[in-house]
């Protein structure tokens, strides 16, 4: 049976969609690491989010239950001595020496590549409006600062981006999947207080008043050197920071009364420079002896990153450096933030929704197939329509998986609505094909396709404005509807027309 080009195109596209969705992940055993606490044993050993744990101390870990049981068994309470934990992931083996369960959060491996929107996974969504209009660059800085703060809380699944609406207002959209910290409002609404203190005294704060320049490239910010340490490599970075006169004088005053400590890494003052963001300590820097009592507007901030290999150590050092640079530059935001929209969706409700959605899809499929079979009485035709409905949904989900699009409730409504249009189009084609008009089959199909294309254009045109209206909150609806009907027009409709011609010819 020779298949035409159009049908081949359909088959190939379906196959690609299947690959993009990757449903075989459902059979994968293990748990995936969602987040790792900074400076914890696990993070220093080189473990990272995204890795899949398959066994611990030779014990198979197939799912969350296994992991929880194992942790409860190994660490019924905090242990007296550190014990060895051999954590096997898909790619590497990590050996940790810990007294309690590693400070990581894990989750079951997602069964497909499809990213579930908040309505399905639960979580929080916030729309933040800065009190003054921001430029592109300022918006990027705001996003960086916010990502920074959310990171401190160890939140794994966070997406932050900017959005604008039809009136030109700019918003920052934050989406956190999974559980929501109850402090979310505080977290995202605050301007951001940054302080560098020695002991209890503030030396300088973030922002323009005290910091006039932060080195970001070239000689002003670089990775100085790397050296081996037990268990890995440490790379040290440094970058230049220019303080204002006032801040420099403060620094001199405070450090002049401090004693010097001599240790194997150098001669440093007895107190360190502690960096606080919104009253939480984010880093402690050693102050070199030469800075004692000196009014110096130019200081070097140093730090390091440690990892298993030099490459990773460099990366870790760069990230730490960037983090500090961001804090020092942005510190306190010069404008207020307003939370214009805050939605929290319970993960429990999200799961309910997913279940019911699948049930709904099945019900609709069965009902439509039944109606069409009653009307046309031919199994082949009914099967052809079911195939195209299924194809359109699959293609849209494949594209969504590919572009990492979050499928939320409006997106799914869009797919269902798009499929409804698809069925309508098939009916138009079939009725035309089986009509008794005295013209060729090809002509009839052409006529049917005129109606189909007309319907296509009106829907696309109706959906387009939704991409911008209301800060794009209904973008999902517009996108999936357009994707589904486009997949219909370009791929499934032509293939379907072909299939119908063949069935008619028989």
């Amino acid at each position, binding site marked *: 049976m020779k298949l035409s080009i159009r049908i081949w195109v359909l088959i190939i596209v379906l196959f690609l969609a299947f690959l993009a969705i990757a449903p075989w992940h459902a059979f994968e055993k293990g748990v995936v690491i969602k987040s790792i606490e900074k400076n914890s044993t696990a993070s220093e050993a080189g473990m990272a989010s995204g890795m899949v744990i398959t066994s611990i101390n030779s014990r198979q870990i197939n799912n969350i239950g296994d992991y929880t049981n194992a942790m409860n068994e190994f660490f019924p309470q905090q242990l007296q001595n550190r014990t060895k934990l051999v954590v096997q992931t898909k790619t590497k083996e990590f050996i940790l020496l810990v007294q309690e369960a590693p400070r990581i959060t894990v989750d079951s491996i997602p069964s497909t590549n499809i990213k579930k929107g908040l309505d399905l996974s639960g979580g929080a969504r916030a729309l933040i409006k800065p009190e003054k209009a921001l430029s592109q660059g300022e918006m990027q800085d705001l996003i960086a600062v916010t990502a920074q703060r959310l990171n401190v809380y160890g939140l794994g699944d966070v997406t932050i981006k900017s959005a604008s609406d039809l009136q030109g207002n700019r918003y920052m959209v934050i989406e956190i999947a999974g559980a929501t910290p109850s402090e979310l409002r505080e977290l995202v609404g605050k301007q951001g207080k940054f302080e560098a203190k020695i002991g209890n005294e503030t030396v300088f704060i973030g922002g323009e008043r005290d910091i006039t320049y932060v080195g970001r490239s070239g000689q002003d910010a670089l990775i100085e050197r790397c050296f081996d340490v037990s268990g890995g490599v440490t790379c040290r970075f440094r970058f230049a920071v220019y303080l204002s006169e006032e801040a420099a004088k403060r620094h001199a005053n405070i450090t002049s009364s401090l004693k010097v400590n001599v240790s194997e890494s150098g001669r440093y003052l007895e107190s360190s420079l502690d960096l606080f963001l919104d009253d939480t300590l984010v880093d402690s820097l050693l102050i070199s002896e030469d800075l004692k009592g000196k009014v110096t507007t130019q200081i070097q901030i140093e730090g390091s990153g440690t990892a298993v290999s030099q490459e990773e150590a460099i990366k870790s050092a760069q990230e730490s450096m960037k983090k500090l640079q961001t804090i020092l530059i942005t510190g306190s935001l010069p404008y207020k933030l307003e939370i214009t929209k*805050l939605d929290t969706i319970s993960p429990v409700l999200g799961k309910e929704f997913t279940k019911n959605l699948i049930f709904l899809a099945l*019900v609709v499929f069965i009902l*439509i197939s039944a109606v069409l079979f009653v009307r046309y009485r031919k199994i082949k035709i009914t099967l052809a329509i079911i195939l195209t409905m299924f194809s359109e949904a699959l293609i849209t989900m494949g594209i969504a998986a590919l572009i990492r699009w979050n499928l939320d409730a*409006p997106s799914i409504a869009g797919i269902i609505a798009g499929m409804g249009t698809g069925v309508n189009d098939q009916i138009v084609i079939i*009725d035309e094909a089986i*009509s008794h008009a005295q013209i060729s089959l090809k002509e009839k199909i052409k006529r049917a396709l005129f109606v189909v294309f007309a319907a296509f254009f009106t829907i696309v*045109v*109706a959906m387009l*404005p939704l991409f911008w209206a*209301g800060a794009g909150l209904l973008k999902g609806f517009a996108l999936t509807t357009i994707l589904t009907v486009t997949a219909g027009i370009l791929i499934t409709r032509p293939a379907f027309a072909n299939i119908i011609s063949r069935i008619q010819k028989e």
Partner: protein
Amino acid sequence: METQTRSLDEKLRWYDHSYKIMLIIPVVIMLISLVYIGYFYSKNGDIMQKDISLSGGTAITIQGDIGESLETGLKEKFPDVSIRKLADIRTGKHIASIVESSSQPQELKEGIESVLGYNLTDENSSTEFTGSALSENFYRQLLITLIISFILMSIVIFILFKTFIPSIAVIFAAFSDIVMPLALLNFLGMSISPAGIAAFLMLIGYSVDTDILLTTRALKKREGTLNERIFGAFKTGILMTFTALIAVLPAFFIVTGLPDSFRQIFLILALGLFADIINTWLTNASIIKWYCDKKGIK
């Protein structure tokens, strides 16, 4: 065979006489709808009842049956509070309650917790808050979107058919498909969410499907009589609307546990499809027939 064709013939000839009368029914319904919306506007200052995300405020969904005392308990501190119950369609069991108020989420949450006596957590509740400035923006923008989409759709129709009266007939039918459900929703006192307005947008696309089919068959084909062609389009069109209804009704009637805003999309689509049956096959068809009779298209 002979009797069948003859009765079909009779039916088709009957159409020749009665199509003008059939036009009256939908036009009357349309006028009633417009009048009602006008009345609604004068009473409420807007053409539709807006839900909390379009008027500004907080909506907290609480799982489980929480009893009747909540509303009275909250009324004092939150005078504009309203509570809606979500029940399982089949069992009638009370599965969740939605508490809405124009106040801030923290306040409302604490108020509810003090009346109920337990904490609202991630597990048993969901919150939705929209600031009033944002919601006003949303609302205005969504309405503008609706108007723009409608205009764009009209342009596409004119380009397709290139003739004035048939195009106007399609556009008028699409307009009625939006106006009639809106009037009904207002009458029933339903609050419309942003997703609901998106459903109206979707309706623009869905409803012209059948009108385009009718107009294309009536004007472009040449076999059979005009009445036969219209009847043929009717058979196809009714099947299309019927299957579309089958796609949207289960979300509202058969499956529960779906978020309200989601179900609203399907409810509005369903109402629009019902309206479409009247508007396409009574209004649009009659106008087309009139036009064809005038132009001598048989």
